[in-house]
């Protein structure tokens, strides 16, 4: 074209060059706002928290000292933080499998229904929609050792055959039923129960969405191939087809479980349950960083928290890319 137009070759090259520069500039201008926002809102705070975790900074102080890894050393040596990790991991390991399992079960049951589907969906999804803080107050009343509904209901079992076959019942009737929120043996399990109750409806909705993408003809193929029982059809068709959904649901549930905070703050605003048995990471961050204004140690817990979440996310990415995509 350059020859036909009689334009010298160099001029064309120069033109292309200026064109390229322009294009590059336009690209930067267009991506700029998003890039700036991402750095300012997401990356910079993490970086700042990372830096602060190596200091003894407190809000309001004019300066701070670098303390090296002392915050992290505290985190991994002091018994309070050992309790923090125990409480967090107990919660995650309990809540994630049960809420995922219940979510899947509920989704399968609802999916097999002809009528009342929407009603069940709404009922199971209600706890997800409800404000957990408000629900926590309701739970607190129900769990009250003397006037709470749960212990009152348990008392009704006294004198019946339940007392003979269930030692827990016998002990309760002889002495008193658990104090639930005041007992370090029960507190974390009560929190886990509420977490499951609150979270499985969300997993159920995700699984219901996943189930719609299962090819109907595969069930017919499975039937023709001799898969007679529901369990065989589930193993051969449903479960593999739900692979990507499961990876997503498990990751989301894990992250949500790591983030548990509002129930604990509502039940024990003054510090992580009886004998710190429910002193989870999110609450520790809040207590150290906000209540006690120990920004350094708060940031260190935050960094460990982020590392956990990052680790989970990476596992999810790996699974999604390598294992469950057909």
């Amino acid at each position: 074209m350059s020859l036909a137009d009689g334009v010298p070759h160099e001029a064309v090259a120069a033109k292309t060059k200026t064109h390229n520069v322009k294009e590059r500039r336009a690209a930067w201008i267009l991506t700029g706002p998003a890039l700036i926002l991402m750095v300012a809102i997401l990356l910079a705070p993490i970086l700042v928290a990372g830096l602060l975790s190596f200091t003894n900074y407190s809000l309001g102080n004019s300066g701070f000292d670098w303390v090296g890894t002392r915050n992290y050393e505290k985190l991994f040596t002091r018994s309070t933080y050992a309790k923090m990790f125990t409480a967090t991991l107990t919660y995650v390991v309990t809540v994630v499998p049960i809420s995922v399992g219940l979510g899947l079960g509920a989704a399968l049951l609802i999916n097999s229904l002809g009528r009342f589907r929407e009603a069940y969906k709404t009922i199971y999804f209600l706890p997800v929609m409800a404000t957990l803080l408000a629900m926590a107050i309701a739970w607190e009343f129900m769990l009250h050792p003397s006037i709470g509904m749960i212990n009152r209901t348990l008392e009704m079992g006294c004198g019946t055959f339940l007392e003979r076959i269930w030692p827990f019942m016998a002990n309760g009737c002889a002495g008193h039923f658990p104090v639930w929120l005041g007992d370090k043996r029960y507190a974390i399990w009560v929190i886990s129960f509420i977490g499951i109750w609150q979270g499985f409806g969300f997993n159920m909705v995700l699984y219901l969405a996943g189930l719609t993408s299962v090819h109907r003809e595969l069930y017919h193929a499975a039937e023709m191939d001799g898969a007679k029982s529901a369990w065989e059809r589930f193993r051969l068709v449903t479960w593999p087809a739900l692979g990507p959904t499961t990876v997503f649901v498990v990751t989301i549930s894990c992250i949500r479980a790591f983030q548990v905070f509002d129930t604990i703050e509502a039940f024990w605003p003054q510090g992580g349950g009886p004998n710190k048995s429910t002193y989870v990471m999110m609450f520790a961050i809040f207590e150290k960083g906000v209540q006690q204004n120990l920004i350094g140690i708060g940031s260190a817990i935050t960094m460990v928290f982020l590392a956990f979440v990052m680790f989970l996310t990476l596992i999810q990415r790996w699974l999604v890319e390598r294992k469950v995509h057909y």
Partner: protein
Amino acid sequence: MAGLSITNINKRFGETEVLKGVSLDIADGEFVSLVGPSGCGKSTLLRIIAGLEEQTSGDVQIGGTSVAGQRAADRNLSMVFQSYALYPHLSVGENIAVPLKMRRMNTLQRLPLLGGVIPGKAQRAAEIAKEVAHAAEILEIAHLLDRKPGQLSGGQRQRVALGRALVRDPAAFLLDEPLSNLDAKLRVQTRAEIAQLHRQLKATFVYVTHDQVEAMTMSDRIAVMMGGRILQCAAPETVYDDPDRIEVAEFIGSPKINLLPVELSETGQVHLLGQPLSLTTGRRTKGVGSLGLRPEALFLTDRNAPLRGQIVHAENLGSEMFVQVEVNGLGSRITFRTTPDKRASLAQGATVGLDFDADKALVFDAIGARVRDIHSTTTSKTEVA
């Protein structure tokens, strides 16, 4: 392997009657196509035979025994689905092995890790692997056994689906439009291969398709279905040359049969556009009807042509040529077949005269039933002219 017998099958979905008393006998080793437009009930009938759908009334027998109340898994039939329905998480080899594993291994032996230590598993697995290899060899997919379905082309997936069907020697094969997801070229190739497979296995095949060409080229018999009924079930050439009803004549054949409105007089004389044709019928009742002329029944003629018109379109397929003519006084087009060497005289807009082979003319009465008793009166043709 066994024959199938379907007796007076009715099927309703709520208010809609999908099948209205369908009966069909399929001999052992026969290849029968169920062909018809979409919504005619052919797939429903196949699914009723398979046991995936339950008939409202009627009976299905496989090898002389009624399978009423028997679920699909117990009927010993194999099915190839339109979407192939391969298990996406299993390799090709595992996909083909599924029907054998489901039938020969118990639940414990099928468990992923624990299954390995259950007695008898290793021996069964070896047997199954051997049979899978054999099926793969028949279909020439042995090199694909380790791949996942997602890594295969449409044609290869189709073969895997066939492999999964034939690996366990079923009473009959049911194929539900297995070629409709393939491109045109592959379809022609696979068509021949399925026909070859049928000859090789000597098994009973029931093949559902909406493509009359597939039905014509592969089947021993074609059952033409429309509106929930089988209109005609006969050998492909019979359905083509000697259709019982106008719908069958219209559905089978490409390009479509030409249908011209005719009048039948009390004497049995057939009139077209008010002119008597060189055809009489044995039926001596006055009324209207249709004259069906396949494109190859028509030929060009200069004199005494019963049909005249202008060429509006010509399609040269290389070996043959189909020409559409707007017929004077008829207001519709008819298509005739000719050889491409005549194309010089077949320019668009040219006026041509057409006559037809009286032996190949099909006459239908007002309700579309075939009028068979037809005589050619070649002598009267000259008189008329």
